[in-house]
């Protein structure tokens, strides 16, 4: 699923990533230690985030705080492991029919809901039928809209039939399953959920939700893998980023996502170093400048390419992210099979940019420092959403860099709401600075296919390339990993050549966690994938219950 990456919480969806090596000596014995203790749940883990959760039902959770809490309370049929490979969760195994039109899951038989009711295929059927019901208004329905029938041959088997083969299907079965015995009578699950404590099958049981203050969970001692090592999970809401940091360092909280600045400069103090570990790895998102292809100014490919050549990405990464990011040339995550390192990357080259502008007819005839064509000055309005400090900083730097090749830039920051309205819907913009989350599956339909240009579509820059359209559709229908890889690499090259975006960078995720937590093993999936294996040695326990 693609989401705006405004607030990234480390305990959110598995992070697609390359590890920057980080060595925690205690890693080597942690496994033994936990076994020796026989999985005792101890202490409390207090993480902070800016926003409160909205709804603790996974099929309706469309913000990062809610999804991260839901991922602890609920589990899905499958999950991704630390290397982002699919593995079974509530499903022990599954079979895909040879034509790719049916998937059968065989469920675990030892799972109980937090209230003691046994978990069965009925719950799975109920969850997916609820999502598919248009009346329920589930935001993720389009990921499942190719399902045309769900069967439950027995209590522990469930079979999904598809209208067309859909390669990303398996990954989508990570969606948390909700209990049919709680909601099957409900007319409207959203309303019903408000008054009820959420009940799931996950490692943590819901205990308290104090609106705008915190959400508290408690370890599920009967969790089917093993009881989690940490007894209480607290998500504390602190709206202000800088206050979050003060909380972390004064040890009122145990974890947060650092800003590059905090990571770089403020973690040097003795107070920080003695108490807190910091991590960094590629977050699975990228930032870009998008050009409105409907605007005559950007219709010429050479102009877009020239603008890309005129941007010094290295400098932007150094200034805005303090070097904590990597250059980006396409919409897939670096170091995954789909990302083609050889695709054209537009290294900073102002001379080439000027030459391309000249080819396209833009020259500075009157020597005032700004290019003209047919008497018109080259001037661009860049827009970004207000409050996104990193993007605002990027805009200011881009303004500076483009000025050097004779492009006049006006920066405009707009409140998120107005921004979406004006740009996503009305397409009334010239260039935008935004970011996308990179889903684990490489499917690009909703952002790059010409069918997604329509009103409210996410292809709001109106990019349309017949070849790319064809490749996107082929990629969705292809189950063979090797063939898919080829398809997406081709797409990467087309996008790089057309330059509808200037791809800027992949930022690093920069989580910081209090040192008393052991068992953290950074992996491509981030650090939170093995949260239930984290523990606090008995001597360092802070909160005793």
């Amino acid at each position, binding site marked *: 699923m693609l989401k705006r990456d405004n607030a990234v919480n480390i305990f959110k969806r598995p992070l697609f990533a390359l590890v920057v090596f980080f060595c925690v000596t205690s890693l080597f014995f942690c496994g033994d230690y936990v076994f020796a203790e026989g999985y005792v749940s101890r202490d409390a883990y207090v993480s902070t985030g800016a926003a409160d959760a909205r709804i603790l039902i996974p099929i309706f959770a469309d913000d990062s705080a809610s999804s991260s809490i839901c991922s602890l309370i609920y589990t899905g049929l499958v999950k991704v492991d630390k290397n982002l490979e699919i593995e079974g969760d509530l499903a022990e195994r599954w079979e895909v029919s040879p034509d790719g039109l049916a998937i059968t899951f065989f469920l675990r038989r030892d799972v109980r809901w937090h209230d003691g009711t046994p978990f069965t295929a009925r719950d799975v059927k109920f969850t997916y039928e609820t999502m598919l019901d248009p009346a329920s208004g589930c935001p993720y329905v389009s990921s499942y809209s190719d399902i045309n029938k769900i069967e439950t041959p027995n209590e522990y088997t469930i079979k999904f039939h598809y209208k067309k083969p859909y390669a990303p299907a398996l990954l989508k079965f990570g969606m948390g399953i909700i209990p049919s015995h709680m909601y099957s009578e409900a007319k409207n699950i959203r309303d019903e959920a408000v008054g009820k404590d959420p009940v799931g099958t996950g490692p943590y049981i819901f205990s308290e939700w104090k609106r705008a203050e915190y959400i508290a969970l408690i370890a599920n001692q009967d969790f089917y893998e093993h009881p989690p090592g940490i007894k209480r999970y607290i998500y504390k809401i602190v709206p202000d980023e800088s206050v979050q940091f003060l909380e972390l360092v004064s040890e009122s909280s145990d974890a947060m996502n650092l800003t590059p600045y905090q990571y770089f400069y403020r973690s040097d103090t003795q107070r920080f170093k003695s108490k807190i570990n910091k991590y960094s790895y590629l977050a699975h998102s990228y930032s870009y400048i998008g050009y409105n292809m409907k605007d005559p100014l950007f219709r010429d490919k050479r102009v877009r390419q020239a603008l890309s050549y005129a941007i010094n990405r290295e400098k932007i990464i150094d200034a805005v992210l303090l070097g904590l990011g990597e250059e980006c040339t396409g919409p897939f995550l670096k170091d995954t099979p789909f990302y083609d390192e050889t695709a054209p990357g537009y290294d900073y080259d102002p001379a080439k940019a000027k030459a391309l502008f000249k080819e396209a007819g833009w020259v500075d005839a009157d020597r005032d420092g700004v290019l003209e064509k047919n008497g018109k000055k080259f001037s661009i309005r860049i827009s970004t959403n207000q409050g996104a400090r990193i993007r605002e*900083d990027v805009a200011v730097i881009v303004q500076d860099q483009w000025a050097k090749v004779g492009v006049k830039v006006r920066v405009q920051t707009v409140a998120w709401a107005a921004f979406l309205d004006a740009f996503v819907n009305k397409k009334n913009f010239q260039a935008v600075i935004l970011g996308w989350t990179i889903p684990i599956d490489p499917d690009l339909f909703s952002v790059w296919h010409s069918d997604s240009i329509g009103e409210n579509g996410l292809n709001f820059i109106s990019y349309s390339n017949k070849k790319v359209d064809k490749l996107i559709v082929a990629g969705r229908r292809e189950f063979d990993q090797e063939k898919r890889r080829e398809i997406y690499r081709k797409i990467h090259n087309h996008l790089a050549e057309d330059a509808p975006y200037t791809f800027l960078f992949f930022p690093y995720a920069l989580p910081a966690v209090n040192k008393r937590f052991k068992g953290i093993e950074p992996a491509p999936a981030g650090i939170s994938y093995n949260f239930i294996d984290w523990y606090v040695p008995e001597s360092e326990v802070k909160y005793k219950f």
Partner: protein
Amino acid sequence: MKRIMIGAAIIMVIAISAICAPVVAGYNPLEMDLTEDAILQKPSLEHFFGTDNLGRDVFSRMLYGARVSLSVGFIAVIISLVIGVLLGGVSGYFGGWVDAVIMRVVEVMYSFPTFFLIMMVVTFLGPNIVNVMVVIGLTSWAPLCRLVRAEFLTLRERDFVSSARVQGVSNFRIIRRHILPNAMAPVYVSMTLSVGSAILIESALSFLGLGVQMPAPSWGNILTIGKNYIDYAWWLTLFPGLAILITVLSFNMIGDGLREVLDPKSDRKD
């Protein structure tokens, strides 16, 4: 009197350096230096107030920010002055149902947590300096209106007004020639004080990201950046905060001094 002089002197210094910012500043407030040594420099002779996270000179940014604060203060107050005097005058001079209606509206304005309204309007109509000025002006005329009304009520009954009325002088002329000039003294006091509060509101809005938009500098949005670096770059928090404090303080000193000069009888309440 001393207070007026001190206040006015400070305001003059700030205003003149704001107007002459390009000369005084020494740096372009928007020009960045992104090299590692250039960002977040401590105050020095080169950069009096240090540099910010993008290597921009804070002193220069604050000079340009002063333009924002002062112009918002003055223009907002002029707007509220026009509305306040107009409505207050009409209300006090004519009385009757017009007065009743206007006074109800004034009561509404008085009991409204105006900051909420301002925040809402600015967010929804777009955060920019013009909207900020207009909205602050439109929401802060109530005290002025009440003041003018009270002056009009008393002046209306004075002999020189009655005699003018008997002579058949038109209402407009009476107001303009006889009442208004006599009613203005307390208005000047209240106005000076309002400039201060308008500056405070503007800085709070900019601090919340609802005022002047980056990269354009304002005291409030320098503080927004400062907040994120508070435990390291103290200069980003200290100087703009002090600037706001001193400016508002100066306006209040002038206002307070004026009050004593214009109305020596009483040590009035607000």
